[in-house]
């Protein structure tokens, strides 16, 4: 596989989409559909979480089945911060990223010594351990989870209004997309992608491949932690279900549908999956059947994911 190169129209298109996103709460309010602002925020948050997994999975080639653990850890840190009297997101969100990152550092430092199916199993095992830890933690609500007492403030501005939280989530997603977009094209991203292609060769070129993988794993965990903190604010609850392996599976499905190793894969996947759920749930509670068919169709007809259908430029970047 070549290095990831965004198609030339990707930047203008993302700017158009960004403008549409900025206008969305106003439009929804004008047509009396405020309810959907919360839904749109959910899409943004899961887009952020799936994008963070895509860094690990798509660019780093690490199939982690425990990514939801970092999402859940972030949610719990936000709730625990509030319980401790810290209601300011400028403190709680970085704390969530820090704790999730530290957790990812421990998980990564151990699991990245294994490969293939063993890596999948060990990341799953860590996530399940974290899940049962929170389920049994009475002071944090056990399996009921830890509720938030209203939403936090961001540099003094309350996130209680739906559009405030929407813009906070949008800001986080945009920042992550810019960072990952730059990173993919910088030395770090190229090294990471080359390690994904041929680890031994990179080692023989003098690269400490373990360190590159670990940094990407930790970075992915941190961004997932941020998504978790935002999600706790949206739903008003840090639930152990967020750490469940099914949640990790959902994130994986989002990335696979959207496009593994494509910058916008996580965003596309999260949007498609959640929109599908939202629409189909009105018709049948067995909407997972349709999801299964979609996944089948993507794997068979667009194995690189939906984002890949829009193509990517293969031009050389130096001539």
């Amino acid at each position, binding site marked *: *596989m*070549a*290095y990831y190169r965004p198609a030339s129209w990707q930047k203008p298109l993302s700017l158009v989409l960004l403008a549409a996103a900025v206008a969305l709460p106003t439009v929804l309010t004008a047509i009396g559909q405020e309810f959907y602002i919360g839904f749109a925020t959910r899409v943004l948050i899961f887009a952020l979480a799936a994008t963070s997994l895509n860094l690990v999975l798509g660019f780093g080639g690490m199939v982690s089945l425990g990514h939801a653990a970092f999402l859940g850890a972030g949610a719990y840190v936000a709730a625990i911060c509030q319980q401790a009297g810290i209601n300011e997101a400028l403190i709680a969100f970085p704390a969530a990223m820090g704790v999730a990152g530290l957790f990812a550092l421990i998980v990564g430092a151990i699991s990245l010594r294994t490969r293939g199916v063993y890596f999948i199993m060990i990341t799953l095992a860590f996530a399940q351990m974290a899940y049962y830890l929170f389920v049994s933690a009475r002071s944090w609500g056990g399996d009921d989870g830890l509720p938030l007492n209203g939403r936090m403030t961001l540099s003094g501005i309350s996130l209680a209004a739906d559009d405030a939280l929407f813009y906070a989530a949008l800001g986080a997603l945009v920042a992550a997309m810019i*960072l990952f977009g*730059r*990173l993919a*094209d*910088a*030395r*770090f*991203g*190229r*090294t990471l992608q*080359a390690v994904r*292609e*041929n680890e*031994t*060769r*990179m*080692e*023989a*070129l*003098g*690269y*400490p*491949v373990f360190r*590159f993988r670990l*940094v990407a794993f930790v970075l992915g965990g941190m961004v997932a932690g941020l998504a978790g903190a935002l999600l706790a604010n949206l739903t008003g609850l840090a639930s152990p279900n967020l750490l469940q392996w099914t949640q990790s599976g959902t994130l994986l499905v989002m990335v696979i549908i959207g496009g593994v190793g494509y910058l916008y894969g996580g965003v596309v996947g999260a949007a498609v999956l959640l929109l599908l759920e939202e629409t189909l749930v009105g018709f049948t509670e067995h909407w997972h059947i349709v999801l299964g068919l979609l996944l089948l169709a993507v794997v068979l007809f667009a194995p690189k994911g939906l984002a890949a259908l829009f193509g990517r430029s293969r031009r*050389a*970047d*130096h*001539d």
Partner: protein
Amino acid sequence: MTDVLLDVRQLTRRFGAVDALKAVDFSVSAGEVHALIGPNGAGKTTFIHHVSGALKPDSGSVHFAGRDVTALSMHRRVAAGMARSYQITNVFPGLSALDNVALAVQGRSDAGSSFRFWQPASKETAVFDEARGYLEQVGLHGKSPVAGGLLSHGEQRALELAMALATRPKLLLLDEPMAGTGPEESARMVELIEHLARHVTILLVEHDMAAVFRLADRISVLVNGQLICTGTPEEVRNDAGVRRAYLGDHL
């Protein structure tokens, strides 16, 4: 004798019941082309793996440029100045020839950290200019935009060499650079190695005897994990033990 660049002492490795390497003493002097030959299964590739750090010995030591590197991992040995090319062609098929070499340049410690998250790597003209230089050295200028996987076998071998060179090694480990190449490509490769040998010390593992006897300053012969002879091409050619090993003449 000149400085000893690589000094392997009493290197021993067992795989289960098989003694792959039996107390091998081996050295490469700075500036020479030292060829390692031996029948199939003699342990040549295993030996190279131990020198490069892909495998760790049961006992014995590897000294490189005056320092004990036995415990160092592969990437640290590369940073210390040891580069290898692979017996099986091992370039990045999806990346252009230039990107392949640029990765090798970028991996060098004096090229700066690769933990850079912001500046586009494609704008680093110094890295790409240097990479172009190595492509030129191995005769691949003009192929720089071609994907590694689309190059001919001989060109891929040359690209391997360019990547190894780009790490600016003190010692180049060449594991069967002639493997699978046709006579023409083979001749070009011999010329290329001859040219490189002026700048860098080479440890060459090769089956092509014509190439070995043309290139090597010294030849060592490995048979069943044991080094049975080291000497000039002339000495090796006339060594009775070597003749026995190669001709199967046990009498």
